[in-house]
């Protein structure tokens, strides 16, 4: 009786843990929305900054391979990790960004972004380079 009870309680908990852990693993690696095996390079000018919790965003005006205007949407960490961007990424600044591209076709999303000036000089603190946003 007790043994049977123990097994049922254990399986109940295991089911709950699995349910909670599976999407958590996907989120923490950002792998659900972004392809972390690939890197993409983007160029453009900063059009908008959303410094907020839990995740911040940087938007760039850029162009695709065919010269069409596109908007890069770059997902960053929370507000405490973005103090450098207020002065370091003024609106209209031309930047180069490398990071992991979004998976959805036709989108221009990036995460784990590294920022540099047009001449290649890195921008931002070391901790802000190549970080994957986490929650």
């Amino acid at each position, binding site marked *: 009786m*007790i043994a049977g*009870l123990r097994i049922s309680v254990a399986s*109940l908990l295991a089911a709950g843990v699995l349910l909670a852990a599976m999407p958590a693993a996907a989120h923490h690696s950002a792998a659900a929305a972004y392809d972390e095996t690939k890197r993409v390079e983007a160029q453009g000018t900063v059009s908008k900054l959303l410094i907020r*919790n839990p995740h911040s965003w940087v938007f760039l005006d850029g162009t695709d391979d065919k010269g069409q205007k596109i908007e890069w949407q770059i997902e960053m960490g929370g507000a405490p990790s973005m*103090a450098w961007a207020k002065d370091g990424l003024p609106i209209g600044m031309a930047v180069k960004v490398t990071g992991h591209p979004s998976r959805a076709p036709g989108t221009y999303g990036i995460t784990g972004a590294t920022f540099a000036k047009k001449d290649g000089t890195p921008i931002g603190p070391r901790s802000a380079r190549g970080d994957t946003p986490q929650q």
Partner: protein
Amino acid sequence: MTDFTIWLESSALGVWTRESPSIWAYPTVLTLHTVGLGVLVGANCVIDFRLLGFAPRLPIPSLAPLYRFMWAGFVVNAITGAMLFVSNATTKARQPIFYVKLLLIAVALLVTAVIRRTLARELSPGGIDPTPAPARRLAALSLALWTGAIAAGRLMAYL
């Protein structure tokens, strides 16, 4: 509804929680929400597992003070949860899983209250072992509900 959630988001509290660059803002509120969860659900787990037959040498009436810990955890999480909701109210108010979480918490609290009354009425003083089947069923239900509430809360970040 949308007007109300927009108003919440643009309130001073909403803006501060969402936009403050301070480590004492969002990261601390979120951390306290996790600590409160640990205390509330942890204390619940002790009583639930005891009712299910674990740690049989622990006298059940001696666990009564744990309800004060549950209250403390609940108050911390009601406050920090309200702050987290206000900071992104329009988004969270549109998430069905958020209402699933609230419902699971409400039912779990109800079950917790029933277990407490059962303990006070039938199991004190001295305790009854093994615990009667209805109390064991309530304990298993409590564990399932709290696990579900935690899972629903976590899923708010993904769904």
